[in-house]
């Protein structure tokens, strides 16, 4: 049972971290509960569909369907995160001023929660399909099934608790810093996802250049452990990144910075409030 709990928990914390960050980034925004729930629901539905068609997906594109799907899902999430940060760079300041003047209700409907809801959905889809397959395997396997199934379900519950902890931890940050902190977290999240996508493209044989590992920290901080896994989800920690992964990681952070600067409105003197 403990084994099943740990396997499921490890799969769930990645999506859990992302949901926690998104919740913190949308603090005080009306309608966020609805959008994020929709994202989770859509993700679970998508995960079940992906798991159900695992065989067909695996066989697609000459046996490279799974790698290409993963790369595409990660790529889409990176684009959504970039869009979100660019939007925040453009409207964040005026929003903060309005919130201060009229109160929080004014943010209702003004912020595109769709991008973040999609990110949540994609994260749940990616990790969730593995959980669904694993749980299916337990049920199909028969022996000691119910005990392990209980472990799997507890793993999901533990993952949800972890999401709550992430959210509460981020809430402890004073509200005037929360936008900056979540912007940085979302940037690192996007960079890590892009680097992960590179690995899938390599596995699919699409991009096979600069594959030598830049460092190897697998004995110090193994990515299979809980801490390594959390850091991987949070900022794309990789125990053996390829040269190309490091380049892409840095490139995403750089382009995010450029994009946000370009999107930011020209500075004008702020009127006295």
């Amino acid at each position, binding site marked *: 049972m403990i084994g099943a709990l740990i396997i499921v928990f490890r799969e769930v914390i990645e999506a859990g971290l992302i949901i926690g960050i998104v919740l913190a980034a949308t603090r005080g925004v009306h309608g966020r509960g609805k959008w994020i729930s929709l994202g989770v629901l859509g993700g679970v539905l998508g995960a079940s569909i992906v798991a159900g068609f*695992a065989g067909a997906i695996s066989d697609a594109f*000459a046996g*490279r369907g*799974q790698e290409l799907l993963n790369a595409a899902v990660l790529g889409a999430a990176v684009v959504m995160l970039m869009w979100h940060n660019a939007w925040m760079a453009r409207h964040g300041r005026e929003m903060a001023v309005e919130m201060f003047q009229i109160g929080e209700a004014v943010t209702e409907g003004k912020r595109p929660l769709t991008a973040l809801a999609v990110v949540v959905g994609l994260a749940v889809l990616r990790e969730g399909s593995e959980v669904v397959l*694993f749980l299916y*395997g*337990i049920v199909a396997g028969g022996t000691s099934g119910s005990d392990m199934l209980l472990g799997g379900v507890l793993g999901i519950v533990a993952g949800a608790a972890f999401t709550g902890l992430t959210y509460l931890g981020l809430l402890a940050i004073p509200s005037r810093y929360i936008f900056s902190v979540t912007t940085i977290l979302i940037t690192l999240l996007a960079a890590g996802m892009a680097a992960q996508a590179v690995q899938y493209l390599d596995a699919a044989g699409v991009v096979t250049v600069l594959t030598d590992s830049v460092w190897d920290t697998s004995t110090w901080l193994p990515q299979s452990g809980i801490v390594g896994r959390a850091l991987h989800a949070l900022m794309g920690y990789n125990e053996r990144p390829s040269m190309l992964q490091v380049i892409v990681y840095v490139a995403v952070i750089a382009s995010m910075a450029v994009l946000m600067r370009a999107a930011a409105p020209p500075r004008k003197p702020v009127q006295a409030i």
Partner: protein
Amino acid sequence: MKAIVLALALTAAAGLMPGIARAQDGLTTTIKDHKFAPAELRVPAGKRITLTVVNDDATPEEFESRALKVEKVIPGKSKAVIQFGPLKPGSYKFEGEFNSKTAQGVVIAE
């Protein structure tokens, strides 16, 4: 017998599909009762490797190796083609994540 014919047909089909580096070395490992057979695979160093993993169990398995940078779900009673490398000489562990107690193996590049 039937299974052997089917496996041969599948291997032939995989070889005919475009895009995959041809499995001229025919490197294959089979998952049975949550164990790899063979569990030790010898491959040439410095070359892109194509490995076929056959899952003979009814339950799905996730072939995972941080060292080889591979992560792939293989549904029950099916097979998957995995590419990795080029590798430096050395040994690279892999495992079936859903049954990692028994499903362990190693790739040795030389």
